[in-house]
């Protein structure tokens, strides 16, 4: 079945620095979603990208969908302690299901 790979799996980021997390698929995706899970919490939807080459911003977060619709990235600038957590990407499968990546666990160093 469709698989979505995320790299890196873990990141330690100094507060104030920028970082990027990547999501890759072996097949073309109809759309991609990003979720964030805080430590001890549950995944919460951040955004959905649908169009080839789409770029969306949410304050310090920039989401991109690749031209071929096989990859996506999340870039966070000026990292804050509130950015700690695990970021998941998920590609749409048939029947309204999602294929989740394994996540990128981000630790913020004050």
């Amino acid at each position, binding site marked *: 079945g469709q698989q979505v790979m995320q790299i890196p*799996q873990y990141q330690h980021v100094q507060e104030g620095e920028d970082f990027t997390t990547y999501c890759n698929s072996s097949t073309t995706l109809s759309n991609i*979603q990003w979720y964030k899970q805080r430590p001890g919490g549950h*995944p919460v939807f951040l955004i*959905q990208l649908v169009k080839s080459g789409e770029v969306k911003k949410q304050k310090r977060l920039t989401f991109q969908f690749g031209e071929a619709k096989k990859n996506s990235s999340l870039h966070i600038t000026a990292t804050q302690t509130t950015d700690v957590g695990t970021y998941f990407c998920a590609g749409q499968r048939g029947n*309204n299901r999602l294929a989740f990546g394994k996540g990128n666990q981000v630790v913020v160093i004050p």
Partner: protein
Amino acid sequence: DVKVTQSSRYLVKRTGEKVFLECVQDMDHENMFWYRQDPGLGLRLIYFSYDVKMKEKGDIPEGYSVSREKKERFSLILESASTNQTSMYLCASSDPGQGYGNEQFFGPGTRLTVL
């Protein structure tokens, strides 16, 4: 606001016991999902339901069954719990009527320990 609730945050059971995990959503969503989450493995789909009494196997259905008798409620059943089913279980719901906007809303999770 969509609310997805799960019957327990923490559960401890013994090997061989029958375990019921309940999930309720209050937004009239047609789709409901059960995932398990293990360190380093991400979210793996156990079962999915797209309507009352309808279900589909996910990626790891072995050892589990589900029940959806009412639209708002989706139950996960471990017929005979085993230690390798110790995990965090997450329920989610979504509305297929949103076009591409099939974001999933997650419950708080149930951390199940099987001794």
